[in-house]
Structure formats: structure tokens, C-alpha cells
């Protein structure tokens, strides 16, 4: 496992530091102007963060839980399936909520490049006509949608992980 992380992490770090919007022009050239480039940018922007965040969250799992499971006779895959995954799931869920915010940001950036529709396209177009009231409204809408999804996800999280006290406390 350690060998695997040593082999893979430098590459992932490298990709993580490449700003996703820099791939915009490339993505449009390769994938055209519809949803393709948007999805590409969001994936580039979040996937590599995702890998490192999951690795980090997994490392934070209380080792004594794994040890307790081992003394109960748990081995290899069962350890992963019965202890590691359920143990990190609430934290992983929280990570996803944070990354969803990032995905929003990348969506906005993606829509600046080579699109003929979408909310950012609307914002830039309205700004060009100096209809700032519309611009504010669009920004507000992004904010409300973002906040709304996060609240809904938090509520779902509480349902999914009734044992997770930090989740209850943080809300």
C-alpha cells in the first residue's frame, strides 16, 4: 500500500496543480462546444483533489478500530469492507459536500469558454449589456442553489449516518 501511494501520489499532485481552466481551450478543440468540455473541466478540477482527499481521510481512521477488528479475526478484504469503508464513510460524505462546492466553481469557469447557454453565459452576456440587476440575480441564484443543495445533503447525511456525532454537532 505504501509503495502504491509513493508511486501514484507525485503524479496526482502534479495533475492537481494544473489549473483545470487551462484545459478549457483544449477541451473545446477536442470535444466541441456542448457539455463535453464542461464535464472535462469539472472532472480535471475535482478528480485529482478527490483521490488525495480520500487517501487523507482514510489515513485519519482510528487505527485502534482496525486493530480491534484484527483481534476479532478480521482479515484483508473484510477489514476494508467491514471496518475501513464504514469507518470513513461519514467523513467521505463531508468531503464530497466540500468538493461539490468546487465543482460549482469549475462549472462557472467552464461556462465562460465556448458555450452558448448556461448561467455564466447569461451573466457575461447581461454584463455586456450593462444589465447589472440581472447579473446580481444570477449570482444570487447560484448562491441559493449551492446553499440549498448543501443543506439537503447535510440532512440526508444525518439520516444516513445516525451514529456520527460530529455530523450532528456541526449542524
Amino acid at each position: 500500500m505504501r509503495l502504491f501511494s509513493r508511486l501514484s501520489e507525485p503524479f496526482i499532485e502534479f495533475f492537481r496543480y494544473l489549473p483545470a481552466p487551462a484545459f478549457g481551450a483544449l477541451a473545446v478543440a477536442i470535444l466541441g462546444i456542448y457539455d463535453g468540455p464542461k464535464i472535462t473541466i469539472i472532472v480535471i478540477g475535482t478528480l485529482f483533489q478527490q483521490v488525495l482527499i480520500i487517501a487523507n481521510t482514510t489515513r485519519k481512521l482510528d487505527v485502534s478500530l482496525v486493530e480491534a477488528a484484527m483481534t476479532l479475526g478480521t482479515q484483508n478484504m473484510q477489514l476494508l469492507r467491514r471496518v475501513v469503508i464504514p469507518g470513513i464513510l461519514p467523513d467521505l460524505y463531508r468531503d464530497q459536500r466540500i468538493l461539490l462546492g468546487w465543482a460549482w466553481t469549475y462549472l462557472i469557469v467552464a461556462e465562460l469558454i465556448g458555450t452558448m447557454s448556461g448561467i455564466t453565459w447569461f451573466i457575461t452576456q447581461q454584463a455586456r449589456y450593462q444589465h447589472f440587476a440581472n447579473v446580481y440575480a444570477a449570482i444570487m441564484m447560484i448562491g441559493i442553489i449551492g446553499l440549498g443543495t448543501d443543506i439537503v445533503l447535510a440532512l440526508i447525511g444525518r439520516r444516513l449516518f445516525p451514529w456520527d456525532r460530529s455530523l450532528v454537532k456541526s449542524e
Partner: protein
Amino acid sequence: MRDITDLGPNGYTRQSEEVRTRFERLKAREVILDVRALTKHFGSGENATVALNDINFTTHRREFLCIVGPSGCGKSTLVRILAGLEEQTSGEVMLLGKPVVGPGSDRGMVFQSYTLFPWLTVKKNVMFGLEVNGRGKFEAEQQALQWLQLIGLEKFADAYPHQLSGGMKQRVAIVRALANQPRILLMDEPFGALDAQTRCRMQAHLLDIWRKIDITIVFITHDLEEAIFLADRILVLSAHPGQVQELIEVPVPRPRSAAQFISPEFLSTKARLDAHPQIEIRRRRGGHFLDDNPSHRCR
């Protein structure tokens, strides 16, 4: 009247006939755990520190062995090696004649920190070991409920660990380890994080469980009174390096009760333990020094 003089602080090495036969019977029983010339070094080469040096002891069937020693004597390392969570540098650990390699369900372990799985209910925690060892769900559930009845927590079967008090959590952790029917139960300061009152109740609880089932217990503590109250024999370790100083046979008769904390047998054993210069006698607990009179300890 028993002759108290030969139990006095200076004559404590003499055993009464009754106590001697009790321990002869104990030592005639089947050997469960056999530790031979066990050493553990941390690091290597010139920087290596010796954590454990030439540890030898055996435990017999249904024996309650306590290991005491100052902090840094490697008692936790020792029990982790017994559990298979750490590897020894040299020497052997034999369980029923077979060398121990890695952790396994034949040795149960209770940790000082709370290690119940927070995402499982109390019942499912107890079922955990049974299920990973291939028992059917129904059978595991029936057994788990029986274990919970034994510790009086059947009402909490569907509660999550965070809803339990510290003492309850450790009771569940004990039966979770016992549900696998291990040959030996290893306990690493399991009551160390509990307050004094709960600790006392837990000690009585543990003796009660131990009396009811066929289990050998190795129990680590730094609390001398706890060791005397619980143990058949007490293994005294010294620090830097961790070595066996003495193996004390506790003369206090069973069943044990809080009243025995002032019995001559108890006090003489205490005096004998106190004679080891490295062992700390007074410890802070909850911000107060404990009352020096041990009879006030458990009410």
C-alpha cells in the same frame, strides 16, 4: 484465627499451607499461554532501545494474571505482542503449544481506548467477530443477545456506542471479545479511562464474568490495588528495559469483595508490591489524590 504475623510486611514471602496448595493446583492446570525469552527492541543498530528483555511466564487455564509496572516498562508492548499486533524481536509466544503469528480470534483483546465500532449498534458490535468468522446471522444474533444479557445490557442492544457511558462501552467491548470464545482474553488497562467509582464496579463485573465462563485473562494495569483485587498472580515489570521483577501469588481468598481491601493478605501483598522502588504508589485521578485508606476506595 489465622496467624497474621507471617503475613506482615517483612514476612510476606512466607505462604500459608492453604495458599500454597491453592497455587499448586493452579499451576497444575493446562498451560494456556507460554511466553519464552521474549525480547523486543525498537529501532536497530546503535539506536535500538530495549523495550522488553527476556520475558518468561506462563498462564494456566482460568487463571487471572495481572501485569503491573511503571509507565514505560513495555507492558502495553508485551500485550500487543501477545495479541499479535506487534512482532517480537526474539523469543516465542505459544498459545496451547502453538506459536502465535499475527492477530487471531483465539485471543480476544480489550483496549484502553473505546474501540466499539461507532457505526454498528451494540448488538451488531457483539455479532461482529462471530460474523467475520463465518457464523450465520441468526446464530450470531442469538449469541450476541445472550452475551448482552450476561452483562445486563440487553436493553441497549439497538443503541449506538455513543449513547453508552464509558463503563457500558467497556462491558460491551469485553463481551465482543468473548463472543469469539477465545482461549485467552488480553486486557490493556481497560478501565484506565474510567472514573474511580465506575472502575470499582467494572472490576467486580469482570470477576463475575470470569467466574461464569472458562477464560484465562491477562490484564495490564498500573493500579496496584486493582491488580491485587483481580489477580491470581501478579507479574511485576521494571522499566528500561522492561524485565520481570517478580511473580507474586496473591493470597487473598476468593470470592473477593471490597471489604478485603483492608484484610491482612491484601495489605501484605500491597506492601510487597510497594517494595518495588520503581512502582508509583500515588497517582492523580480526576484531579485529586485518592484517599490513602484503601477501604474507602469502593463503596
